[in-house]
């Protein structure tokens, strides 16, 4: 099966129109677009995404506008969209209503960073009801038993956090990450995608060579948005970045 590139940006960073423009640019080389819902207290995120959340919220971003962006994007593209969020905005809206709106707008999957599998019974049955894929994260210290549980609860893919830390660009890939990938790959029936810290072609290539079914990239794009703001230049640079990463994936697949 083809190896995938998942490209993450924060919805509404710096405004909804820009996000739509950026999604179109990224989708030229990405297999899945991951949209983050900005949150006031993003404890699993490093500085880059924290700042993106603040930019979006300061410009009046709302959960309902995330659905508007997806709906608008669907007029142009079939690229699957996965939404990544902390639990509170979902909980606050009501899980069922959230899933219904996500589905109706054209969203395909959901990642809730701080919802552990133990507490996901209702979540899983409602996601199933509304046809939303569920993606859970696993970390290098996750036990084999839990990885199996996470795999069972996931559809679409299992998301491996490649390091001990928050999101953000890192220079190198650790051997820990590669070992963890190999170990997890053996346990999962779902495709296994790796994320956190990936920003360059070589990173993507190395994970794919070592068995990853896809890579997730976020902060590398968000840094571009941080630097160039709402501009054509940003869209162009995002597209180039996605192309570079996709090349790494193709090279790693050989």
């Amino acid at each position, binding site marked *: 099966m083809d190896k995938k590139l998942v490209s993450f940006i924060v919805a509404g960073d710096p405004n909804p129109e820009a996000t739509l423009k950026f999604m179109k640019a990224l989708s030229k080389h990405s297999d899945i677009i991951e949209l983050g819902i900005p*949150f*006031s*207290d*993003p*404890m*699993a995120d*490093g*500085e880059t995404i*924290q700042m993106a959340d*603040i930019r979006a*919220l300061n410009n009046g971003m*709302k*959960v309902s506008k995330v659905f508007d962006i997806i709906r608008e994007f669907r007029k142009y593209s079939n690229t699957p969209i996965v939404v990544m969020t*902390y*639990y*509170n*905005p*979902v*909980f*606050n*809206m009501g899980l069922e209503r959230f899933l219904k709106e996500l589905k109706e707008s054209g969203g395909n999957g959901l990642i809730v*960073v*701080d*919802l*552990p599998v*133990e*507490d996901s019974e209702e979540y899983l049955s409602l996601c199933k009801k509304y046809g939303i894929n569920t993606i*859970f*994260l*696993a*970390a*290098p*210290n*996750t*036990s084999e038993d*839990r990885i199996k549980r*996470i795999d069972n609860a996931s559809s679409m893919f299992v998301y491996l*956090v490649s390091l*001990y*830390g*928050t999101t953000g660009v890192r220079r190198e890939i650790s051997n820990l990450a590669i070992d963890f990938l190999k170990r997890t790959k053996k346990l999962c029936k779902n495709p296994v995608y790796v994320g956190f810290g990936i920003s360059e072609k070589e990173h993507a290539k190395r994970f794919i060579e070592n068995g990853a079914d896809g890579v997730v990239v976020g902060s590398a794009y968000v840094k571009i948005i941080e630097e160039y703001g709402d501009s054509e230049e940003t869209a162009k640079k995002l597209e180039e970045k996605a192309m570079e990463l996709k090349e790494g994936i193709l090279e790693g697949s050989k």
Partner: protein
Amino acid sequence: MEMRFGKYGGQYVPEVLIPSLKELEKAYKEYKDDPEFKEELDYYLKNYAGRETPLYFAENLTKKIGGAKIYLKREDLLLGGAHKINNSIGQALLAKKMGKTRLIAETGAGEHGLSSAMVGALFKMKTRIYMGAIDVERQKLNVYKMKLHGAEVYPVESGSKTLKDAINEALRDWVETFEDTYYLIGSVVGPYPYPSIVRDFQSVIGKEAKKQILDIEGKLPECIVACVGGGSNSIGIFNEFKNYKEVKLIGVEAAGEGLDTEKHAAALLKGKEGILHGMLSYFLQDEDGQIRPTHSISAGLDYPGVGPEHAYLKDMGAVEYVGITDEEALNAFLELSKTEGIIPALESSHALAHAMKIAKEMDSDEIIIVNLSGRGDKDLDTVMNYVKF
């Protein structure tokens, strides 16, 4: 130990923290009833922190107000000047048993940061304190004290730059460092098992108070009043009394500039259910589920959430929750300073202010115990802005 209090609590954290929380749960279960551990804990509580603390009859204040007898549980007399040390000693001992060599902690008023810095020095552990940049500014004295004890104080510039952001930053640290680092949470908040652990270590307050009031008065009090930030000093004194229906328990939240303004920190009175910092509880949040900025004259109550056990106690009607404004707290601060020669923390002044309100309406043979959770030296900078001599 309970993963949930009714529906509240839980373990809403990123996957990478689950193993650390399981490790903590296992260790705590192993040591909590271990005679040697308890002996060591008691030793440090007595000889280092200064337990037991007195239960003091505030006779002048009682006479002045005219009504119920007001007793003060003097947690302000502990080393560091607040109840926070009860929990910090307990958790630091646990951290040592777990083989951890580094402590991290969050702090608002600086009291928990200070008590963590103290135990870090005592048990020779590297200590880093996360503190919102705004709190670093308004609690300079405590920042300096923490540094005297060899702790590193890390000003948090993200978000609202107060306690909630310090917790976020401490969690971000822990995600990277859990192998050698113990996260010493300062209140009955956070993911399971923290709310249970902190409650257990703070329960010594209520245990002593019950014995003391029975010794002095030969009966239980009619009423116990404590302030609620995250909720540790209040749970600490309530816990021993919660099975006595005849004892009324009152938790006092920070009503800031008024409960009908945006500027308060009354999560139980004005918040709604939500999920943050690993727990399902009450939080002050906007219509989109974004956590709202809070305000209180006291940094220690300036938190948008509250421990999950309080959420449960509120729903059960087991504890009454009320609000006290900045102004009322300040007046109580001045009153106690003047009538008894005791300077209370601004946090504790909230409890005191409410006790003064209800004492008037009660009979002179009735008893109120106020948990005087801390002393007010740390707040003098703040108070000087309001009151000039």
